[in-house]
């Protein structure tokens, strides 16, 4: 065969993407581990791993002919070689350049994955090139590795100010004094975030005390490779991972384990077969029930025992496959420190990121789909949640904002929380954007559901200009859409001045769920049990019509009803009793009115992808034991439907 088999090629590319992902993750982990470490303390093992990962990225990118990635990896490798050979210091500026390189690499690879033209990374490549060839450029000579008794390398930073000038102290004065102290290797003027200027002197001297003596004159110093402490007005994000322990140790633990890498598609096939088995077994159970009368009781009991044994074994099989698909959420969380760090730096805020529950396991498919939504919520937390340092201090809060990203398992669900201690959501601003909505309940409390409906409406933003932080990628509507689609729920809790917490509850895995089977006319639907609060019997005479809604007074409250027969245009006969499936609680509770509920089943969820049959209120389909296909109701969309209906009524009459 001379032609390339496209299937082979696509699986080849999948392998490439998976491998590139791993290396990129390693590169970032290592860069983070180097961040803020004194040049002398830089672990050679970390440098070695960085170098190896870049080298691998270069090699595999060349193999798939992704030139841009190959080039970037090549220049990162060259830069790292210079650092490893002690020609260049791994200082903050240089790490920044390398991090930019890693970001550019990812952008290029993601573009290829999505079949897009890779972005131009000329500037990044140029910066990397400068890093590799000119130690005196953005790079800093490594002198910290010199013997301690000899002259050591320092970076002295002088920030001119009006007060100093008044005392006759200017940069030339400082330069002259520093020349007396030691040997000046280079001087770099740096523009600060606040528009001011700082001069960085790289200097070699044995006399630290002489440097210290200059501090009343506006000179701060630090060993080369570390930023001089007081000049952090540009607000570097301090990243903290309390649960991960010392950074260097985390990196060192990346030892090869006893693992196989399995294509998710193969696991899907296995899961599908297991799912088919579940259906076959329930068919068998149906058949058993029918033949019961014709089989001697003793034999029938045996049949039943085998059947229930098989049910248990199938459950074990499914659980086993499911466990293989579970991965720690840490894989996604680990990227967040970089995101927060970049955003905080760009916006001049100070943010601490706390991460907890990284080892919480969740279905690989689910967490991959959740990557962008989590990213968006974290970006929002930095962009909209956390205030500027001045505002925080003025409000009596610590200058550093905290974002807490945590995951935990509760029963069959995984809960992911993104919490910030920022300003909270500005309800007044939101109310102005959505005047039709009344967000207050009778007792004045905020209805979180309504708030969510508003901020998750497509195109919603409280800021007029889409800023860099929140204005790119997915929006809140996509966040909620993804969570809904995965069978999860999204909640928000916000308090003015105290912060905002988004809570995402996801099923541990997809595939098999418990459901209630309900009939409407001659049609049958499945309702995911996780969404059901309770099932109640309803006397149709007790329903009150209120404009276009029907309400049931239940436990002293008005419970809005969705009559499925009406919504889905299904012919039904009048019945003396109906069943209402109550979903949600409190103000967001809605009753789904059906003819009758016919018990509980374990169902295998298949998603509906084709646009011809992608309708609101239906999230998927399943096959019952008798071979019939049954639609699974999208409870979240249905209850939204009833909440939004009054608004469309207003529009119609306007």
């Amino acid at each position, binding site marked *: 065969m001379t032609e390339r088999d496209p299937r082979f090629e696509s699986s080849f590319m999948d392998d490439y993407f998976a491998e590139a992902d791993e290396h990129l993750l390693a590169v970032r982990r290592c860069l983070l581990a180097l961040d803020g470490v004194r040049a002398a303390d830089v672990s050679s093992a970390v440098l070695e791993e960085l170098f190896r990962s870049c080298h691998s990225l270069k090699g595999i990118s060349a193999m798939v002919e992704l030139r841009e990635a190959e080039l970037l990896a090549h220049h990162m490798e060259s830069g790292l070689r210079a650092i490893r050979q002690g020609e260049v210091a791994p200082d903050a500026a240089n790490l920044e350049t390398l991090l930019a390189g890693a970001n550019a690499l990812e952008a290029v690879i993601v573009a290829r994955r999505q079949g897009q033209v890779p972005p131009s990374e000329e500037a990044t490549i140029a910066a990397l090139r400068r890093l590799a060839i000119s130690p005196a450029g953005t790079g800093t000579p490594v002198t910290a590795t010199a013997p301690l008794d000899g002259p050591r390398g320092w970076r002295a930073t002088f920030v001119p100010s009006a007060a100093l000038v008044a005392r006759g102290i200017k940069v030339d004065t400082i330069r002259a004094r520093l020349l007396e102290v030691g040997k000046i290797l280079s001087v770099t003027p740096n523009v600060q975030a606040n528009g001011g200027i700082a001069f960085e002197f790289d200097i070699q001297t044995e006399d630290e005390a002489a440097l210290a003596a200059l501090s009343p004159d506006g000179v701060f110093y630090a060993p080369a490779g570390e930023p001089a402490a007081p000049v952090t007005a540009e607000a570097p994000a301090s990243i903290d991972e309390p649960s991960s322990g010392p950074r260097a140790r985390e990196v060192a633990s990346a030892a090869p384990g006893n693992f196989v890498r399995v294509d998710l598609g193969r696991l899907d096939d296995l899961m*599908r077969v297991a799912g*088919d088995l579940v259906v076959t077994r329930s068919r068998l159970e149906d058949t058993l029930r029918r033949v019961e009368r014709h089989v001697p009781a003793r034999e029938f009991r045996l049949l039943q025992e085998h059947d229930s044994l098989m049910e248990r074994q199938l459950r074990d099989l499914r659980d086993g496959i499911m466990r293989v698909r579970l991965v720690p959420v840490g894989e996604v969380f680990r990227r967040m420190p970089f995101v927060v760090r970049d955003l905080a730096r760009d916006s001049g805020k100070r943010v601490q990121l706390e991460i907890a529950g990284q080892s919480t396991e969740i279905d690989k498919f689910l967490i991959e789909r959740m990557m962008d939504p989590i990213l968006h919520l974290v970006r929002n937390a930095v962009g909209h949640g956390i205030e500027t340092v001045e505002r925080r201090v003025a409000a009596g809060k610590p200058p550093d904002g905290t974002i807490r990203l945590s995951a935990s398992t509760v029963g069959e669900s995984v809960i992911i929380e993104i919490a910030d201690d920022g300003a909270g959501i500005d309800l007044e601003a939101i109310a102005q954007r959505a005047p039709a909505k009344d967000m207050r309940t009778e007792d004045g409390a905020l209805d979180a559901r309504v708030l969510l409906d508003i901020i998750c409406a497509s195109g919603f933003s409280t800021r007029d200009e889409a800023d860099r932080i929140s204005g790119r990628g997915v929006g809140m509507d996509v966040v909620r859409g993804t969570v809904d689609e995965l069978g999860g729920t999204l909640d928000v809790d916000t308090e003015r001045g105290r912060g905002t917490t988004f809570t995402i509850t996801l099923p541990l895995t997809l595939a098999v769920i418990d459901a209630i089977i309900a009939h409407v006319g001659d*049609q049958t639907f499945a309702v995911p049990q996780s969404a059901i609060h309770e099932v109640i019997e309803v006397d149709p005479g007790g329903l009150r019509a209120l404009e276009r809604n029907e309400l049931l007074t239940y436990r002293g409250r008005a419970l809005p009803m969705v009559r499925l027969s009406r*919504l*889905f*245009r*299904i012919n039904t006969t009048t019945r003396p009793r109906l069943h209402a499936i109550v979903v949600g609680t409190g103000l967001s509770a809605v009753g789904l009115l059906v003819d009758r509920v016919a018990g509980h089943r374990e169902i295998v969820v*298949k*998603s*509906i*992808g*084709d*646009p*011809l*049959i*992608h*309708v*609101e*209120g*239906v999230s998927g*389909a399943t*096959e019952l034991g008798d*071979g*019939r*296909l*049954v*639609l699974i109701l999208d409870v979240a969309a249905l209850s939204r439907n009833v909440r939004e209906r009054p608004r469309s009524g207003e529009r119609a009459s306007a």
Partner: protein
Amino acid sequence: MTDKSNSTEPAKTQTYILFGVAGTSYAVLSRQVQHMEMVEQVTPVPNAPPFVEGVVFSRGQIVPVINLRARFGFERARLNQRTRLLVVQHGTRSIGLLADEAREFLTIADTSIQPPGDAIGNLSGNYLDGVATLGERIVLILNIREVVESTPIAAA
């Protein structure tokens, strides 16, 4: 409008599957058909476009079913023993086409297919790739893309 007679070799023939809808013979390229099956029941999908009969499971897949009678503007008919579901490939999608009957494979030379002229501007006219004349028989060649996509899908 595609003109098959100019774009292909004169002697080229292709295999089609013939099926009937409301007394008329239609054909689709057999390589576009994944498989054919009998249907007992189609689950209706509420608020789907009117020509969508519903959804079935076919070989482990969820497949939307287009009722060709409804699509061409005929009265719907009750499903029976002769009703067939042709599961066709359209891009990455699998779509079921509900036909009254489907029985034979047929090889048709490209030269016997003419573009659908205005004269055949009947109900299914918009959904045709061409008209094949085979002796006394007239077979309408179906354009699957048009059948699946031609009207805007009802807003979800």
